[in-house]
């Protein structure tokens, strides 16, 4: 029987192992420490704009993250609530302790999945790197397997830096992994050092919360997962507020006076850090005009008295960290219980990956998460699930599942990584998606329904939840189109209340196009439609109303966006045959051929997205492929 080993118990590893097992494949999750499965090494939160979208997407594919955060979240908030539905993103504070327990419990109760503590030392193939045989552990055990998903996070040759001090570690208090990385490098894989950082953690009792700005979560909280039933206690944890504080001139002084002592600015780090997730040193240096920076004060868990300072990631020595923290109003007596630190680790150039996330030239090996140059739990999870899915499909001789750029943020991310590569830790932003207006997070289930069915990891009952929601949504659309708004109808009265003039032959959808119709009045109008108030699992009426309004008002913009980009999609559907001699084609310049060699595009669309490849070169490539096909 075929067998998959997933190395790593972080967010990528969890998803890879979970989905592979749910797809019916015998799976082993190998981790250095079973107690650390699902550990959140950095901020105690999941989601956000772009990131929350990916959580919804992997949930729709049968992933674990959405369900885990719903079960353990203690503060839920929809970000960008003031923006349109396409860019709203769910975010939640997790109870880190409970999240870990829930993650492990979920894996332990997933059929076909077993856990194993141990450190991977080497991969073994039958011939060279052909025919994967298995994974050798440091303790001498040999785990035979047919595919392996490596999700090493920050552990490969991890080095923690605090001020001038440097120590080998995969995460504070845990040893790094050194053997595997050496083997991979010896096989010719291109490796580079990346860097990320985290914030100091404080003792809750040492902070004067009365002086902080309170930020409450949404009430009622809205779940991440499409399958969480709120009416049946789907969000079980007690909800707590977060707090906000701002840096002061003293904070800036502490940073500026000690820049030379920062691991990052003192020249102690060779790794490249994430631009979109900067350290506090970075913020003061790069944005000198900004007088103060916002810091979020977040609980790590209801089980502990530990507080996380989001936005204060730093690699300063502990004494400077203390000075910085105590310069915040209300933190004069704050005690640091775990200092912040920077961590440097091995990552492999994602240009060496196929779009199914398997590694070029290494039979049966998949990579997912930080090893591919991303940052963030959600980015890791999104790759983990796709690596798991495609490893299983490969073992079953099935076509890989490649999510398109106009289909999912996860598709955008993997295409970006495999096509353009990344020089800094890659973080998802909605700006990376050119088809943004069609990629709303609440539409993830609709967008991915067919793919989900192909994967087969969702239960029939779960597919049913999505399908009945979609048919109700469709039904609502029809009701709006077929309901005429006349002066004498109740709808007319609502229009009059909004001060709107009615046009002849106007339906409800037309009425909704008017900007000055308030949400309350729209709700009033919708309530008049038959069947509208019926509760249904997965049906969030205020979100559905917003979706309806956005469609009525801006669907033309989404269509226009898709039309202007249609040739990209056309190009994406043209595969470059595996044996196409793209690097030896006489018509291309050395530079373009070098790019093709390095980036190895699998489709014409990918070729067109390689920086430095001219559209004319892509057009010529297209011609050559067509010519060969017809020959």
């Amino acid at each position, binding site marked *: 029987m075929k067998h998959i080993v997933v190395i790593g118990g972080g967010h990528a590893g969890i998803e890879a192992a979970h989905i592979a097992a749910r797809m019916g494949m015998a799976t082993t999750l190998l981790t250095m420490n079973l107690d650390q499965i699902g550990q959140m090494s950095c*901020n105690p939160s999941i989601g956000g*704009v*772009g990131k929350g979208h990916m959580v919804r997407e992997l949930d729709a594919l049968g992933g674990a993250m959405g369900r885990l955060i719903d079960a353990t979240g203690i503060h839920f908030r929809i*970000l*960008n*609530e*003031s*923006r*349109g539905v*396409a*860019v709203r993103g769910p975010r939640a504070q997790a109870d880190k302790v409970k999240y870990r327990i829930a993650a492990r419990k979920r894996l332990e109760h997933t059929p076909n999945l077993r856990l194993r503590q141990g450190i991977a030392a080497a991969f073994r193939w039958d011939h060279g790197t052909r025919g994967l045989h298995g994974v050798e552990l440091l303790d001498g055990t040999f785990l035979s397997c047919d595919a392996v998903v490596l999700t090493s996070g920050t552990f490969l040759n991890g080095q923690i830096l605090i001020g001038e001090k440097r120590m080998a570690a995969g995460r504070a208090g845990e040893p790094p992994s050194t053997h595997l990385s050496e083997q991979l490098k010896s096989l010719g894989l291109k490796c580079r050092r990346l860097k990320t950082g985290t914030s100091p953690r404080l003792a809750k009792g040492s902070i004067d919360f009365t002086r902080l700005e309170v930020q409450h979560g949404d009430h009622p909280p809205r779940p991440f997962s499409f399958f969480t039933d709120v009416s049946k206690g789907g969000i079980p944890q007690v909800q707590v507020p977060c707090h906000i504080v701002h840096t002061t001139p003293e904070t800036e002084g502490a940073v500026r006076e000690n820049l030379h002592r920062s691991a990052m600015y003192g020249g102690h780090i060779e790794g490249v850090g994430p*631009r*979109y*997730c*900067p350290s506090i040193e970075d*913020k003061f240096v*790069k*944005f000198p005009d*900004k007088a103060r*920076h*916002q810091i979020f004060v977040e609980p790590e868990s209801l089980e502990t008295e530990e507080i996380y300072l*989001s*936005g204060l*990631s730093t690699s300063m020595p502990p004494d400077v960290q203390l000075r910085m923290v105590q310069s915040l109003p209300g933190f004069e007596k704050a005690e640091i219980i775990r200092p912040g630190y920077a961590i440097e680790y091995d990552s492999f150039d994602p240009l060496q990956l196929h779009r199914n996330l398997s590694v070029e030239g290494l039979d049966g090996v998949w990579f997912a998460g930080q090893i591919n140059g991303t940052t963030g739990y959600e980015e890791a999870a999104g790759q983990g699930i796709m690596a798991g899915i495609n490893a299983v499909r490969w073992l079953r001789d099935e076509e890989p599942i490649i999510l398109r750029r106009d289909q999912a943020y996860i598709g955008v991310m993997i295409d970006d990584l495999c096509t353009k590569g990344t020089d800094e830790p890659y973080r998802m*932003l*909605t*700006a*990376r998606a*050119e088809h*943004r*207006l069609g990629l709303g997070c609440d539409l993830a289930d609709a967008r991915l329904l067919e793919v989900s069915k192909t994967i087969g990891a969702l239960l029939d009952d779960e597919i049913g939840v999505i399908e009945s929601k979609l048919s109700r949504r469709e039904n609502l659309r029809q009701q709006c189109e077929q309901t005429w708004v006349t002066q004498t109808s109740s709808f007319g009265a609502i229009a009059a209340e909004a001060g709107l003039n009615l046009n002849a032959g106007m339906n409800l959808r037309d009425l909704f196009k008017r*900007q000055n119709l308030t949400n309350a009045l729209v709700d009033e109008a919708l309530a008049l439609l038959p069947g509208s108030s019926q509760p249904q699992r997965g049906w969030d009426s205020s979100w559905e109303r917003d979706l309806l309004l*956005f469609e009525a*008002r*801006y669907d*033309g*913009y*989404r269509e*226009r*966006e898709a039309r*202007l*980009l249609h040739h*990209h999609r056309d190009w994406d559907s043209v595969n470059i045959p595996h044996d196409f001699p793209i690097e030896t084609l*006489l*018509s*291309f*310049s*050395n*530079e*373009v051929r070098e790019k093709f060699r390095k980036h190895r595009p699998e489709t014409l669309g990918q070729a*067109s*997205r390689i*920086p*430095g490849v*001219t*559209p*004319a*070169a892509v057009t*010529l490539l297209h011609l050559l492929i067509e010519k060969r096909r017809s020959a």
Partner: protein
Amino acid sequence: MSEPICAPATPLFPSAVAVVRVSGQNLADVLAPFVKLPRARVATLRYLAWDGYREQALVLFFPAPASYTGEDIVEFQLHGNPLLVRRFLDHLGKLGVRLAEPGEFTRRALLNGKQTLLETEALRDLIGASTDQQLRQAQGRQGALPAWISETKARISPWMARAEAAVDYGEEEGIILGFDDLKQEMIRLHEVFHVEQHRAGAARWLRDGIKLALVGRPNAGKSTLFNALAGEDRAIVTEIPGTTRDVLEIRTEWAGLPLSLFDTAGLRDTVEPIERLGVARVHAVLEQADLILHLVPATDREADAGILERLAPFEGKVLQVRTMGDLPAQVSEGPVVSAIKGDLVSLQEALIERFLGDLSPEACLGAMATARQRELLEELIAQQELFFRLESGCPPEVVASTLQGMWGLLAALTGEDRAESALDQVFGGFCLGK
């Protein structure tokens, strides 16, 4: 390795000098058995010998990437004997340098990013220009990006950055789009686009030429006017599709306007040219004309009814011109000309107004003149229209989408397509938190 190619850059006629160009990778190696390449960009005399031929040539070497094609280029200036050039090309062939296909040098330049699509189009027009005006117009579109494109990009890119930041970080960092200021910027750009569209509409005629058909009753003065318009500069003569060889197109430049005159050749001076040609053929001529000049002698009280009836389907592109203006006029409507006296001022004004509007040919220099460019310009204006339909307080991602669309269209115009450089500029000026 890119196949080396060669081509004569001058026509194969006996002349003082003939130029042969070679383009390819590592030409120093390719040509090593034949000639040692001189220092880069220094004209150097070299003695060449092959198959018993001997030639003294000036050789120029432009190493990659600073050359026309972006590859190595070697230029040979030979004596201008066509046979010598042929033998020289034969020899290059033996060295593995094949004869280039038409346009292949330019295609390589485009492929290697040495030219924008706009430049390639301008170059094509430059080489194909047959009148002074077309030459000037093509030159006007050469070189750097048109200022309005770079200006538009510079003006919208900070707004794209702002819109993107408002979407991805807006709530946390308190970044708002500033819709009303953006709208002001858009109104200014709208002016720019409007001017460009206006210029493009006129430049189109300067590039493509204006097809004129002359129609009138016998002895209405067609011949005289035709000769006055065609002048001595009459150029390329071609057959018009859909007609017989009897109908020819004569290209000329008159009053700064490139004209294509539909000439009915020998039939022109006969009594009933239109009848002789046959209804179908006349229709084909009139169909293709951009403007039909209906010539009516100033001495006639009114135009010939039969001709009017025949021209009825073309209403809107018929200009009635009173000829023989030197004779006592019956009607003073429309332009009145006297070809005999050389007084064509009113016709000139009418044509310029009709095709160039209030613009002079000089004002059309650098305008978007090809059909592709005009289409994209229209798309750009339509895209901006979508923005104007938005209201303050609309979601920033919709604004961002319209701006991205505009950016994409500008990139399509220059041939860069959707430029990733747009994203690089995004976020630059904002402090972004986690």
